[in-house]
């Protein structure tokens, strides 16, 4: 059989149309296409694709089942290792993970593993969820702090092993960054909630509106709440600002605020939803990561006439996924490279009217291997904007570290945990995801949740 050299294209909303709505951009494969794409898999014995998956999904096996139209079998196989396949199929950077190692990809396009995963997960959500096996109750209780990707994965694994799991979530819905951060047009919130519901079917108890460190500390949960172990997956939700003059002016948002208002609070439906948001005619988003792309694309959908990414390095250094930057560009987001603001200018009423910026050039590579940007003296110029979104990164929220005795953190505030086991300096307390590594990807956080679940299980079995 001849090899089909290219991935089957993913149908998507037209760029001009989608830039004005919050509906999902990528529309997903239909049954015929997914079978054709799955048939591109060579079923190679070495299974190199599995090395690239942080949660070790049995990729050839689920793809084989999909190729045979056994979607129930395929999703069952997927969920042995991955509690959130509908999420991962959409937001994983497959080009750096499973698909990077695909044998077909050596000479042609790799197999569209993420797209097949997404189809199978969506098939299950549409056709009714299959029951999953749960072990006999062990009588052990585990507290999971935070319901983002790491916490959800850790909870699912421990519940399947028979432990009694309670997730404590500070916000009013579970999902963490999947709910407040990643926009609806990349990851529909209904899809996230459907996967959260699946977890509840495993017996996972989810308490929303529960801020650990405030209503109770981790120590209180363990001592008074009777929890035998805890997993801290509190993420990197503390926004960094530039610390330049004018940053508190009206019209300056952190990306976290801008995206939380839009995604979690549905400000795009205002006034049918109560939370307002203000987007002017010209928006500047500072930063070059996925969060910056999400904010810039969101600004257009909220009605901005121009949405700019202002980034101090050049296009080649953009930390965002290539596909995200491309989607942004297709939708009309503009890029100002080698540019960074020195101050934000505002009017008598304290509203933003512009940014004074410097132009940069690239110097020697820095410790991270990227060429560091050097400001060009005397290159000051002003960009007229009325809204600024700061998307230069996030750090770990200090609420839990600050209130947990004996929990060691590094100088950036990240919890110190053994990456092989998830163990922290505190016996019985494990941690993983962005709160340990700093802001990274959904799938890496899930991998850390899996690792910690294995360690917690071993710890509880010996206890």
């Amino acid at each position: 059989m001849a090899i089909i050299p290219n991935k089957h294209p993913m149908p998507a909303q037209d760029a001009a149309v989608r830039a004005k709505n919050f509906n999902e951009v990528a529309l997903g494969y239909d049954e015929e296409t997914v079978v054709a794409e799955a048939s591109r898999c060579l079923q190679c014995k070495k299974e190199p694709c599995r090395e690239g998956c942080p949660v070790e999904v049995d990729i050839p096996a689920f793809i084989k089942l999909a190729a045979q139209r056994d979607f129930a079998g395929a999703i069952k196989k997927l969920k042995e290792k991955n509690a959130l396949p509908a999420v991962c199929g959409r937001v994983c950077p497959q080009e750096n993970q499973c698909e990077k190692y695909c044998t077909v990809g050596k000479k042609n396009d790799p197999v569209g593993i993420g797209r097949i995963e997404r189809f199978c997960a969506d098939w299950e959500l549409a056709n009714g969820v299959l029951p999953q096996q749960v072990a006999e109750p062990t009588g052990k209780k585990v507290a999971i702090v935070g319901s983002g990707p790491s916490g959800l994965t850790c909870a699912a694994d421990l519940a399947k092993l028979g432990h009694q799991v309670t997730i404590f979530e500070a916000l009013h819905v579970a999902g963490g960054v999947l709910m407040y951060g990643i926009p609806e047009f990349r990851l529909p919130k209904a899809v996230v909630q459907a996967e959260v519901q699946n977890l509840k079917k495993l017996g996972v108890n989810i308490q929303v509106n529960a801020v650990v460190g405030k209503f109770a500390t981790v120590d209180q949960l363990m001592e008074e709440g009777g929890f035998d172990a805890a997993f801290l997956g509190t993420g990197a939700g503390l926004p960094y600002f530039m610390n330049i003059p004018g940053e508190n002016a009206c019209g300056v948002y952190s990306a976290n605020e801008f995206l939380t208002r839009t995604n979690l609070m549905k400000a795009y439906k205002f006034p049918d939803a109560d939370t307002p948001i203000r987007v002017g005619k010209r928006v500047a988003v500072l930063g070059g990561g996925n969060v910056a792309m999400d904010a810039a694309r969101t600004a257009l959908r909220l009605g901005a006439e121009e949405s700019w990414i202002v980034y101090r390095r050049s296009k080649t250094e953009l930390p965002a996924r290539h596909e995200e930057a491309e989607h942004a560009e297709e939708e009309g987001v503009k890029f100002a490279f080698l540019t960074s603001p020195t101050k934000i200018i505002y009017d008598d009423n304290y509203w933003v009217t512009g940014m004074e910026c410097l132009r940069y050039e690239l110097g020697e590579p820095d410790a991270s291997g990227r060429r560091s940007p050097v400001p060009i003296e005397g290159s000051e110029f002003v960009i007229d904007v009325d809204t600024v979104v700061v998307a230069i990164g996030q750090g770990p929220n200090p609420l839990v570290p600050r209130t947990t005795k004996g929990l060691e953190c590094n100088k950036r505030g990240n919890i110190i945990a053994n990456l092989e086991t998830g163990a922290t300096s505190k016996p019985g307390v494990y941690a993983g995801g962005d709160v340990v590594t700093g802001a990274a990807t959904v799938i890496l956080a899930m991998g850390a949740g899996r690792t910690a679940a294995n360690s917690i299980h071993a710890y509880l079995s010996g206890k």
Partner: protein
Amino acid sequence: MYKILKKEVLAPTISLFDIEAPMVARSAQAGQFVILRTIDDGERIPLTIADFDREKGTITCVFQEVGKTTTELAKFNVGDCLKDFVGPLGEPSHIENFGRVVVVGGGVGVAPIHPIARALKEAGNEVIGIIGARSGDLLFWEDKLRDACTELRVTTDDGSYVRQGFVTDVLKEVIEEKGDVALCVAIGPLPMMRAVCNMTKDYNLKTVVSLNSIMVDGTGMCGCCRVTVGGQTKFACVDGPEFDGHQVDFAEMARRSVIYKEQEQVAMEHYRQGHQCTCGCGGGK
């Protein structure tokens, strides 16, 4: 769900609820706040804790109807449930035996000043309370404050009850009369807290205010509530809400507090038009 166990209309547009929230009540302290959401697709609004009962597992909230969400909230009744209720948030008030202290509550700020006054008195302070409102009918909790304070003075802007004058006028009198006052705690509308701070600065009287900036999550993840204190950016939800009033950039706060003024009016209008009832709010037409 968070059930309303008690409702009391304290004054026109000012209501009190006791809300069943045992997890919040078990650790709530004076000076902290909660965030609530009335309905699905509702917004998250912060309210300062006015009282708590650990045994009953309830939190008392007092609020004024100023816009869509608070107007809607005022229509809730005993037995109804709020969609979401989270806390206790923020840092508790710093309580110790300072000696003689003055607590000032303006308008709806009389409610959050109450647990602070009580805690200060329990810590051995001589607590002089000053409460004020625009007019006598808007004043509430006089008895409760009288119990929580060593001495209570009451004033109204229009003189319709007890006496005429702003809380700052009374505060000035107290300072002049008593001499050594170790601390002032003032909670109320922004202009009132600003006026108190401007005045106490002249007397070098340390003044703590509770800042009511716009909030979304209330847990330090967005920076919506940021304020400049002593030249530094602080997040009111996690670093506050109480700060040294002499260090607060009130001008900046005042401007940030009206960011959504237009949208707030749109939301109110939208609510009135879509709201079918006979409560006299003008809805249902």
